[in-house]
Each structure stands twice: as C-alpha cells, then as structure tokens.
C-alpha cells in the first residue's frame, strides 16, 4: 500500500515541519499543562485546604498532650512535614491526561512527531512546579504558627524541593492509572493508595513512640524516612544521613511508580 506525496514544495510551503527536539517538546507540553492550572483551580485548592485544616486541627488537639509527654518536643514543627505530604501527594495533571485520552486529544499529540516520553515528562515538569507552589503557602502558615527552620533559608529551599520531588514520585501512580484505564474515577482514587503510606508511619508521633506491629510496618514504609528527612531540616539542622535516607525513599517510590507509568504509556501507544 502506498500513499504518495508531492516533493514540489514551492513558495506556498515556506513553512515545513521538522523535529522540534526533546527539550522543546517537553517545554511545550509543560507550558500547556501550566496554562491549564488557573482554569482548573479545583484541582489545587482542596489539597491546600485539607493540608492546612489537618495541620491546624492537629496542632490544636495534640500539641499539649504530646509536648507534655515527650520532653523538648515541638509538635507544631513536627507536624509541618505531615501537612506538606497531605497537601502535595496525588496532586498531578493525571486527571487532565485522562480527559485528553477520552476526548481524543492524546491521539492528536501522538500524531505529531513529538517524542512520546516528552508527553509524560512535560506533564511532570508542570507537576513539580505546581507542587513547589503548593508547599509555599503551607510553609508560610507554619511560620505564622511558630515553626522555625534550624537549617535557615537554604533549608527551606531544600525542604520545598524534597516535598516537590515526593509529589512527582507519587504522581507516577496517577499517570499509570490514567494511561492504563482512561478512567477519571480510577485516577482520583489513586490518592487512596497514599493512606497506608501516610498513616502507617510516624505522622503524628515520633517513631520511638510507635510500638508493636506499627513500628515494624513503619520501618518498611518509605514515608517514614521522607518525614524524618524533612523534619531534620526543621528541628535538627543539616543531618546528611536523614536527608540521604529521605532521597533514597523518594527514589524507591519513583522507581516503582515511573516503571508502571512508562509501561502504561507504552501499552497505550501500542493499543493505538
């Protein structure tokens, strides 16, 4: 089967397609994803609200009891990383990608010479920008209620960066579900995956206070090490071991989620 084409381009064909390049492809997709954020504020407002709500309520209800039980313990500073994880986990453009699959726009992207990987990486680049932006108001509220970073301004930057990297790592699960199922409800429920991660760990009390099976589970939960790394920046100072453990934990989750996510992308492309 052959479909031929003219090679006589002529002056009317002054514009001719050419490969845009990986960076250009990725930034074009990221730009589109970021432009959509102001039109899709319902995707970012609830996570901030939930994070701030639990942050303030937990401080009000648990500060006194924990600080009297544990000597030198500052529950407000301890809770900030938990609030951050509540705010940024599961925040991604995966629901928007599902809509692209459903309304055929994903096919339109596949029909262009764009590198397939750039479609996902463009969305993820937007995600990490959004996650960083979401962390900032939570940190500001933290400052207002008395949180101070032992590591200073640079520590705040590292804190925001690790939080955003975690958001990116977890978003891989949402993209995997989006590309595998093309179902918005399934994507929205991916946040439920985070519940065991968040609650079977040292979210509310230090790990030393956990006992029995919960302590064992927390040992294998990557969020435990992520929380400890983030907390070290707030309450301890530059603890390189804790930071390295946090980054390894993020890397392990990212390795699993991205493997699933890129496999789902390959499957979606293969199915056409």
């Amino acid at each position: 089967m052959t479909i031929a084409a003219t090679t006589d381009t002529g002056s009317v064909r002054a514009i001719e397609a050419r490969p845009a390049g990986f960076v250009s492809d990725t930034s074009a997709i990221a730009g589109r994803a970021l432009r959509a954020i102001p039109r899709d504020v319902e995707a970012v407002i609830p996570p901030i609200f939930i994070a701030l709500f639990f942050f303030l309520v937990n401080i009000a209800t648990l500060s006194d009891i924990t600080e009297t039980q544990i000597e030198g313990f500052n529950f407000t500073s301890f809770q900030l990383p938990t609030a951050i994880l509540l705010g940024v986990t599961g925040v991604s453009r995966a629901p928007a990608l599902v809509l692209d699959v459903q309304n055929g726009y994903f096919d339109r992207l596949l029909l262009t010479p764009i590198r397939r990987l750039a479609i996902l990486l463009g969305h993820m680049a937007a995600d990490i920008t959004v996650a960083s932006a979401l962390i900032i108001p939570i940190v500001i509220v933290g400052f207002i209620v008395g949180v101070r970073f032992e590591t200073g301004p640079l520590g705040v930057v590292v804190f925001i960066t690790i939080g955003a990297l975690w958001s990116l790592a977890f978003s891989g699960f949402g993209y995997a579900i989006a590309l595998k199922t093309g179902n918005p409800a399934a994507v929205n429920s991916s946040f439920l995956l985070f519940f065991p991660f968040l609650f079977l760990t040292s979210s509310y009390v230090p790990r030393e206070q956990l006992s029995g099976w919960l302590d064992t589970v927390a040992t294998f939960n990557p969020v435990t090490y992520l929380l400890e790394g983030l907390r070290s920046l707030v309450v301890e100072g530059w603890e390189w071991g804790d930071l390295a453990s946090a980054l390894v934990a993020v890397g392990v989750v990212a390795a699993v989620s991205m493997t699933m996510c890129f496999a789902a992308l390959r499957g979606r492309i293969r199915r056409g």
Partner: protein
Amino acid sequence: MDLDVATGEIYGFLGPNGAGKSTMMRMLCTLLAPTSGQATVAGFDVVDDPGAVRLRIGVALQDAALDPRQTGAELLRLQGLLYGLSRREANRRVGELGELIDLVDALDRPISTYSGGMKRRLDLVAALVHNPRILFLDEPTTGLDPVSRARVWEEVRRLNADLRMTIFLTTQYLEEADTLADRVGIIDAGRIVAEGTPAELKRSIGTDVIIIRVEGDAADVCQAVERVQGVLSVEARGSELVVSTTDGSATVSPVAVALSACEVRVRDLTLRTPTLDDVFLELTGSRIQHDETEEVGS
C-alpha cells in the same frame, strides 16, 4: 487490501460503518501498528520510520480531537511548536488559519464554547498548521449540517488545487466521495471490492438506472423485466426493482409495458443515472447505512 494513491490525488475510501475505514486510517497515520502487511506513506514505511511519516502528514480524525480547556489559538500554536515551527512561525500560522476558517474572532475563546461546526473546522486546520504534504481526513463531515459540510468540501478542494496536497479521505457519504474524490475505493468487510474514478465505477454497472416501486413483491416480476431488450440486470428488494440499462430513455417504455403485462400495479417509476450507492449495492448487495447525527449551526 492493496491500493496506491498518487501525488496530488484526492482518494476517497468509501464504505459503511464497521467496514474497516478508520482502522485502515489509524494504521496509515501510525497510530495503530499493522498486524501484517506493509504500507508506505510519502515514501516512508509506517512501521520502520513512523517519525518521518508524521512529519509529512496532517490528520483530522473522525471525532474532533480537541482540548476544550485550551483556546483555539493556544491549540494551533502548540501544534505548530510540536511540528518544529518557531514561535514566530506558529503565531503567523494561527492568524492565517484563523482567517482561513473564519474563526479569527473566536480563537481567543476556550474551545468548549465553540459550536460543533466551529470545532470541526478548527480540527481540520489543526491538521494543516505545518503544511503537510498528505492530508488524512477520517469522515470529515459526519455530523455536520449541510452548510458546514459544503465549507469543508470547498476547503478540501482548495488545498488540493492550490497546494497540490494529496488527500486521503474516508467517508460513508456517497455524495461526498462522488463530489470530492478523483478516485474512489469501495471497502466492504475489510477488503476493497472496487476501485476507480466515480465515473468509471458508475459506468461499470450500466449507463442508466430505472427504479420501480410496485405493490407486492417485486421479485414476482423480475423475470418479465429481464427479458426486455436493453436491460442489463434486474434486482428486486422488497417492493423495489432496480433495473440497469445501457439506454434508459429507450428502455423505460418497454419496461412499463412488461410490467403492465404482468398485471402488477406500479406505484412509481424513476429514471436516473447511476450513483455510487447503486455501485455499492451491485457489489455488496446492500446499501450504505449512514450513522447520521447531524447538528444545527456552524
């Protein structure tokens, strides 16, 4: 299935729903990998070199593939960037294409506010941002009102005439294939049953067609009509009789006399030249059923 489409040709792929037109289209556009066989588009193999194919083709799929949250201008600009156009070139194309489809005033509005006809036109020009050499149109006017349909036809003709763009279009509309296509391939159940210019295909079943509706079963009078001189073939479907003949005006009277002799009551009798629908009927034994969801407004 084996077909060749020449440079600068408008090729119409005609067939009913479920015949395999869209599947074929998706394979040629590199969206779907063929399970067997070989296809080259613009000289490049669709499996071995899909990137080269994508650079040279523009595609408007059956359902307008648009992101309703973007504005028309954003969508066209992004298309341009993904095809390697500079920001300046992309912006120039947005203006040119907006004028082309008479959407300049609407380009800064979200696509979700567009009517069905506007979306279809935007979808069509989104396939043209990079000036493709080959344009694939999958049922480009399905669901459009007659005015929008005519505008799309006009634009397809202009692209072919002015830019010598090769156009491969699938359609379930006989009139569309007849009006637009230089050559037509008729597909049924995944295979091509006939191919040629619309005129050649119509000639293949005779010069004229006489359609007769009778009271009762038309099959009862088939044999009597077949014996009339000049009749090439007769087909009965329910109460309808389709008669192919080389000279309709000379044959219509003897056919009427033959029917009268059979003492059958004729409800109406029409003489006309054959349509592609008649060709399709002759080749497949059934007429094309349209999946029509026409909308109002453009």
